[in-house]
């Protein structure tokens, strides 16, 4: 049972963290375009959009890599869960307001739909599982401190 649990936690960590690392890598080549996609959500004041566009991929990259490696696992999961909750809220309000926009999630030109919201909710569930379950045995957190698991 423990091996199954460790395997599930490791899979959730690697898939979720990997998705965020990939998402960051698709945005970094053209942050100017990403800024326009954020602006189209019409959630942030225009003056704050450039700062959000510049920092968000870096946060995704740092938290995603930490989750994949199992370093400060719970803290990384908390950050990604907060981002996913914000994405679900932002997408939902845009769809409810009838704003037709590109998702901006993984670069490219994917249109935001309720399917995008559902995908983010599945990712959020995986993130919450890691937040609750911890890093699991196959992580740097556990390898370095096997007897006293760190909170993060």
């Amino acid at each position, binding site marked *: 049972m423990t091996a199954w649990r460790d395997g599930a936690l490791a899979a959730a960590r690697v898939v979720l963290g990997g998705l965020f690392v990939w998402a960051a890598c698709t945005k970094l080549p053209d*942050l*100017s375009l990403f800024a326009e996609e954020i602006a189209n959500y019409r959630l942030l004041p225009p003056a704050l959009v*450039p700062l959000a566009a510049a920092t968000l*991929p870096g946060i995704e990259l740092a938290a995603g890599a930490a989750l994949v490696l199992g370093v400060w696992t719970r803290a*990384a999961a908390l950050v990604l869960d907060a981002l996913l909750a914000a994405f679900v809220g932002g997408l939902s309000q845009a769809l409810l307001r009838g704003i037709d926009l590109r998702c901006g999630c993984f670069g490219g030109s994917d249109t935001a739909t309720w399917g995008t919201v559902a995908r983010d909710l599945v990712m959020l569930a995986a993130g919450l599982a890691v937040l609750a379950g911890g890093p699991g045995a196959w992580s740097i957190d556990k390898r370095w401190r096997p007897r006293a698991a760190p*909170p993060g």
Partner: protein
Amino acid sequence: MGASRLASLLLRSAAIVAAGSALGLALNAAGPHRVPLGTPVYAAAASGTAACGAGEAEGAPSAQIHARISVADAVGACNACSAGFVDARGADAFAHGHISGAVHLPPQGHPDEAAALAELRHFRTIVVYDDAGGCRLARPVADRLRAQGFADVRLLDMTFTDWTATGGPAESGACKACQHGAETHR
């Protein structure tokens, strides 16, 4: 979870956010298409300078909101040959003058559209413009390009007249990319 563990978790989360933000700012500063931090970015249909506000478009409403590009950024992209330009106006207007290197692609199509699209495939970013105010012509062309698989299609924030007024590079003559097309000037 005890209070000290919760505090530790929050501190580590804040550290990840701070480190990630610093990383993002550094990568933005070093990136090829960085976003200027001091310049506000407006939604596609909310800019006071937008020539393509959703409510201003004439004719059939566009199904998509396209990103825009300012004339200053577009002039830079033109000089660096880092973007392909599409002129959505009529053939007469195109022949009289257009952005240097632009491909002629009006909303109703082009006799040699395949050649025009092949020329544009050399570029990652495509800028579509017109001189119609409200982007009546540029919008449907941008929709069509997106449907053809061009991921980064932008509408010029102003018109070709504004482009020439700001000293943007322009030339006259027929569309060089559409070498097989004997288009009718209209």
